């Protein structure tokens, strides 16, 4: 007996909803087998993975704090991805945004000015956009591959950060260690409560999600971009210019990543050091695709990714699971999620018996 793969006439609406549920069930199953085989109680492990990290106020605060940059960046990236503009350099745009924001926070003449946060916001967004404008210009003018350029610019951003914190911006009172001075209080988001770390930058992400939804689902430009992604020739025939999609897609990603960098430096970090991002810019690409490039899907995807991360720490702390095992489990979940999506567009059929 052989199964045949067949493309569906229309994407299946039922599978669209069922796919994540099936994926989750399969993940729990495969995970339970894995945990049991290694001698850990599967139920206790799953509880520690998905419930324990967020059943306290601090846990919720940490969850949102971790998810916020992922969701924000994924929203920006998805705008471009929908039009087949592949910005995979959000990590670099985040770093440049953080550098610009921190520069404003450190060197603005009046360290107590209430304008600091808004100025840092503009600096972060502007710098992220400027960094993304380089590949946009090269792609629009010279048809340079934006995948390569955005990725390479990430390394340049990392080296620029390294140069600054090892050199001119190094904290004069920091024993020559490669980090800047701490930002003044007025340049930091004030947490909602000092027992927790969550701060008002979460509202920026919330607004970004709404803007992303309005843009992709309610605006003509968003529609044009989706068309040029789905059917480039049709888009050209309809007179949609490719370069406007390139610019919009890359600048949206750059702005979102730059703002995320600003929120990190003005939030949990408070200073620059040679490494400032735990790979948010890359993880956001996964989040964008788990969320199927849709605003609300991205929110769920970001929450899932960050919960997996926090859960990985919790199982390590409470049950002593090795970090590698938790990463395997995270991989299993992502695998099933993306694999289940396959069945939205395809189905398996038994061949008719001759």
């Amino acid at each position, binding site marked *: 007996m052989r199964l045949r793969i067949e493309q569906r006439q229309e994407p299946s609406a039922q599978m669209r909803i069922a796919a994540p549920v099936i994926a989750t069930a399969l993940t729990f199953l495969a995970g339970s087998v894995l945990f049991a085989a290694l001698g850990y109680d599967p139920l206790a492990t799953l509880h520690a993975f998905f419930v*324990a990290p967020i*059943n*306290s*106020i*601090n*846990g919720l605060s*940490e969850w949102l704090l*971790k998810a916020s940059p992922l969701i924000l960046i994924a929203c920006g990236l998805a705008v471009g991805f929908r039009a087949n503009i592949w910005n995979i350099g959000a990590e670099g745009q985040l770093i440049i945004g953080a550098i610009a924001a921190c520069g404003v926070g450190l060197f603005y003449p009046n360290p107590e000015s209430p304008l600091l946060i808004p100025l840092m916001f503009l600096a972060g967004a502007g710098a992220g956009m400027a960094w993304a404008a380089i590949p946009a210009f090269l792609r629009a003018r010279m048809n340079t591959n934006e995948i390569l350029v955005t990725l390479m610019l990430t390394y340049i951003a990392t080296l620029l950060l*390294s*140069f600054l914190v*090892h*050199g001119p911006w190094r904290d004069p009172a*920091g*024993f*020559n*260690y*490669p*980090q800047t001075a*701490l930002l003044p209080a007025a340049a930091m988001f004030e947490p909602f*409560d*000092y*027992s*927790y*770390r969550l701060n008002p930058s979460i509202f920026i992400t919330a607004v970004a999600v709404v803007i992303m939804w309005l843009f992709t689902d309610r605006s003509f430009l968003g529609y044009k971009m989706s068309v040029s992604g789905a059917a480039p020739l049709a888009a050209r025939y309809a007179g949609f210019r490719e370069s406007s999609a390139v610019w919009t897609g890359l600048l949206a990603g750059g702005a979102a990543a730059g703002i995320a960098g600003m929120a*990190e430096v003005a939030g*949990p*970090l*408070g*200073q620059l*050091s*040679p*490494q*400032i*991002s*735990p790979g948010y810019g890359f993880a956001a690409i996964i989040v964008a695709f788990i969320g199927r490039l849709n605003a609300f899907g991205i929110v769920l995807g970001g929450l899932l990714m960050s919960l997996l991360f*926090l859960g990985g*720490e*919790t199982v*390590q*702390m*409470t049950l*002593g699971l*090795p*970090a*590698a095992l938790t990463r395997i489990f995270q991989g299993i979940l992502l695998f099933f999620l993306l694999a289940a999506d396959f069945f939205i567009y395809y189905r398996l059929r038994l061949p008719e018996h001759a």
Partner: protein
Amino acid sequence: MFNLTRRQFLRYSGATGVALGTGSLASFASAEEPLKIGVVYVSPIAEIGWTKQHSLGVDAIKKEFGDKVAITVIDNIFMPQDAERVFRELAASGNQLIFGTSFSHGTPMQKVAPRFPKTAFEHCSGIVHRANLGTFEAKYYEGTFVAGAAGAHMSKSGKIGFIGGFPIPDIVGPANALLLGAQSVNPEATCNAIFLNSWFDPGKEKEAANTLLSQGCDVICSMTDTATGVQVAGEGGAWSIGYASDMAKFGSGKQLTAFTLDWSSEYLRAAKGVAEGSWKAEARWDGLAAGVVKMAPYNEAIPADVQAKLKQLEADIAAGKIHPYAGELKDQDGNVKVAAGSVLSDTDIRGMNWFVRGMIGKLS
């Protein structure tokens, strides 16, 4: 005033919430309950390297305390954003003593420690203290000075190669001492230095080691978290010097010695202090004398009389008779940084951002 009280109330109610959440109320530990210790590693425990040496400290506590201690270990925590959450959770879930093991854990620990005033925090390679945040660090430069002397005895070219993770004082200082140790044997010795800007990048480190070999260096010392430097040197027929762990088995028989790190005494001291209620936040900085830095067994190829000299050098440094940074010290441009008859101050050692005369390479 109201604000402060409110915050304190929220802090404790929050901490209780987290403790309940993780199914444990041990923050109100009674005398019979085990001492709860949390340890945060920067990388997974490997066969050799930085985190491995810290795990030996944890093992020492386990051996000493047996079932009177419950240790929670979490590894692979490097980024400050993540570290702050982990330190918070460890403190909130009732750990009485918490170790951070990387410089990048510093700022997060400084933020978390004041919120948990009854918890003892110990930060390895830290520079900032709080009422309940102590630091401990090794005098790597004592080890590199001895290793440099061993290298100069065995080197034909008088050129030593140094590979460092980051150009921070904790690496620049030991690199200088490596050359100063070599110059104590061969005043003409020089040292080529390369920084990787990474603790763990075997590919880049291999390239760096090969570069140093092609520049004529016949002794390679690598202060990173891999054995790559030792390995590449051995394959290229050059001598090597291991760091953190004894790396002899990677060196094709060419590892001269290694300056190894043994944090057991630091871990035990802190754990005993907390158990007895006598723990205080201190700045501890120990080397050969306290056994935090130890020289691995010398290579059999080193003649017996030289080995005896090196052991004497170890003893003299431990006894304080020889100071690796004794004057006169000149920088690369020939400016006198330490006058004859005096030694570099501890503060200047911990902030060292200049190369001594004979170092080849630039500090960015």
